[in-house]
C-alpha cells in the first residue's frame, strides 16, 4: 500500500462572507486513524470538506503527495481520497449492491464496461462491512447502523488509500457506533487505509484514534497522541468544560469524565462513590 501524505497549509476557508477556518496547518499521519474533535461550529466539517476538495480554500493549500488537491482532476483524486459526507442521500428503492457499486464510479471511463475487477471490489467492500447478506435488499428498509455500514461499503468500493468521514457515528446508537468504529479500525489494520474522521464523542475518539486533533474557533488548538491531547486543561479550553481525565481500564486510553454542577462526589472520595 503506498504511503500518501495529505497536508493542509495556512488554510483559510469559509462560506458566504465569513471565514470559518483561519489559517490552519495540519499534517495527516499516513496509515493511521485521525479523529477531529471540537465544539459545535468550530470548523471540523469545513476542514474535512476543504481537504476533500468540496470547498475551495480562500488562502493556503491542501496538498496530496506533493500535488495541490485543487489542481488534481476530480476523478483522479477520487481514486486516492474518498469522502463520506454527513447526510448522504440514497435514491429511492436502490438495492445495497447497486449503491455499493456506485463507488466504482471514479474507476470507470466514459465507455468502459463493468469488469470483473469492479465486481471483486464490490464483493470485498460488502464482506469487509459484513453486509453481504443484505446485498439484494433495498437500502430504505435497513436500520441506521446497517445503512451507515452500506455507505461505508460504497466508500470502500472506491478502493482509496485515504478515507475521510464526516460524523459517521452521529445518529447511531452506541452499539452501532462501536460497530462502525471497529470496522474502520479493521480497515486501518488490514489495508493501512488512512482514516480521518470527525467525531462528537471524545471518549470514543480517544479510544479509536492514533492521532487526535482538537479544534477551536477555526484553528487547531492542539493535536497529537490521545494521551497528550485529552487533558483537563485542553478540555476546558476547547469545550469550556471542567473535567477529570482517568485511564480507561479496557483500552488503556484516557477517558474524560465531565464535571457539571450536580451529582458530583466530594473531593475526598477517591473511589468515586456519591454521597
Amino acid at each position, binding site marked *: 500500500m503506498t504511503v500518501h501524505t495529505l497536508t493542509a497549509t495556512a488554510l483559510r476557508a469559509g462560506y458566504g462572507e465569513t471565514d470559518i477556518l483561519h489559517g490552519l496547518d495540519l499534517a495527516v499521519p499516513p496509515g493511521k486513524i485521525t479523529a477531529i474533535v471540537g465544539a459545535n461550529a468550530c470548523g471540523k466539517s469545513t476542514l474535512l470538506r476543504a481537504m476533500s476538495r468540496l470547498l475551495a480554500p480562500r488562502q493556503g493549500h491542501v496538498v496530496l503527495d506533493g500535488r495541490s488537491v485543487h489542481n488534481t482532476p476530480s476523478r483522479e483524486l477520487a481514486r486516492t481520497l474518498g469522502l463520506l459526507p454527513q447526510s448522504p442521500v440514497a435514491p429511492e428503492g436502490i438495492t445495497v449492491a447497486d449503491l455499493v457499486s456506485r463507488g466504482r464510479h471514479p474507476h470507470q471511463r466514459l465507455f468502459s464496461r463493468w469488469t470483473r475487477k469492479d465486481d471483486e471490489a464490490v464483493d470485498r467492500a460488502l464482506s469487509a462491512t459484513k453486509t*453481504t447478506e443484505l446485498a439484494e435488499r433495498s437500502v430504505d428498509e435497513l436500520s441506521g447502523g446497517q445503512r451507515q455500514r452500506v455507505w461505508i461499503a460504497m466508500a470502500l468500493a472506491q478502493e482509496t488509500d485515504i478515507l475521510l468521514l464526516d460524523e459517521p457515528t452521529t445518529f447511531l446508537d452506541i452499539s452501532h457506533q462501536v460497530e462502525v468504529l471497529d470496522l474502520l479500525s479493521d480497515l486501518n489494520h488490514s489495508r493501512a487505509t488512512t482514516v480521518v474522521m470527525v467525531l462528537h464523542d471524545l471518549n470514543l475518539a480517544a479510544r479509536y484514534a492514533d492521532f487526535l486533533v482538537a479544534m477551536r474557533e477555526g484553528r487547531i488548538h492542539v493535536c497529537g497522541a490521545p494521551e497528550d491531547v485529552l487533558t483537563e486543561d485542553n478540555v476546558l479550553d476547547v469545550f469550556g468544560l471542567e473535567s477529570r481525565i482517568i485511564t480507561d481500564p479496557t483500552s488503556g486510553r484516557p477517558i474524560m469524565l465531565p464535571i457539571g454542577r450536580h451529582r458530583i462526589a466530594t473531593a475526598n472520595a477517591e473511589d468515586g462513590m456519591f454521597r
Partner: protein
Amino acid sequence: MSSASLDRIVINRLRRSRKQRVLIAALIAIVVAIFALALSYGQSLTPPGEVIRVLLGENVPGAAFTVGQLRLPRAVISVLAGLSFGFGGVAFQVMLRNPLASPDIIGISSGASAAAVFAIVVLSLKGPVVSILAIVAGLGVALVVYGLSYRNGVSGTRLILVGIGVSAMLESFIAYTLSQAPAWSLQEAVRWLTGSVNGAQLAQAAPLLMALLVFGGVLLSRARDLEALRLGDDTAAALGVSVSRTRVIIIVAAVGMIASATAVTGPIAFVAFLSGPIAARIVGSNGPVLIAAALIGAVLVLAGDYAGQFLLPGRYPVGIVTGVLGAPYLIVLIVRANRIGGSS
C-alpha cells in the same frame, strides 16, 4: 473474499441488466409498432406492402401521397420530438433529484413560447425564424435562471424556485401579448402554443435529428455522472464528479434538445414532464431511465397525435391530447412524488 458471494453478485447484476435490456427492447418495439400503425391506418387503410414500397422510394399511385407526404413526415417528427422532449425532461428531473422539476415548470418552455408569441404577434414573423428565436430564448432563459440561482454554487431547490418565478413573468407576458394581438396573428400564435405536428415537413426532420444526436450524445456521455448526482452533491463530488461543470453541461444539452423540439412543434404539454416518471415506473428508478424516458416520449407524442386525429370526436392537436390526459396523471404524480420525498 468468498467466491460464492462474488458469483452471486455477478449473477444478480447480469440478471438485472438482462431484464433492463428486455424492457428497453419492448419499448422500442412499441415505438416501431405505433409508427407502423400511423403510416398505414389513417383515413384509409394502406396495406403494409404498399407502405414499404413507398418508403423504398417507389411511386405507388395513391399511397405515395398519403404515406409519403402526409403520414411519414408527421410520424417522423413525432418520434424525433418525443425523443427530445422525453430525454431533455428526464435529464432535468434526475439532475435536480425531483420529478416535479420539469422544464415545463422552471421556465424553459415559457421562454421559448414567449419568444415565439412575440415573434409572431409583434414582429409578424413566420416559419423557421420563429423557431430559431424560440431556441435562443429557451437557452437564454435557462442561462438566466441558472445565473439567478447561483450563490456559492447552485442548489436544486433554488433553481426550481427561481424557475417558477421566471416562468410566472413569462406567462404573464404571453397572456398580455395574446390579449393585444390582432385576430389573424392571434390564431397563428395560439396554434403555435398548443403544440402540434400538423403540417410537419420532412425538411424539418433533419435539423431536429442533428440536435437530437448532438445533444443526446452529450447527455449519454454524462449519464454516469448524472447517476452519481442522484446520491447528493457532496457524495457525487466525493466520487469524482465535478458537480457544477456536469450540471451546466446537462442543462445546456437538455435545454438544447427541448428548445429544438419546441421550435418545430411548439410546446407539447407534459411530455417532458411525464416521460421520466413513467419510465421510472417501468424500468425502476435505478434502471436505464434516460433511454426509457426518451422512448416513452416518442410513444406519447406518436400515440397522442394519432388519437387526436382519429380516435376522438373532432381533430385535436397532440398538445391538447397530452395536456388533457396528462393533467390527471400529473396530479397523481404530485401526490406520489411528495409522498416519497423531494429534492435536497
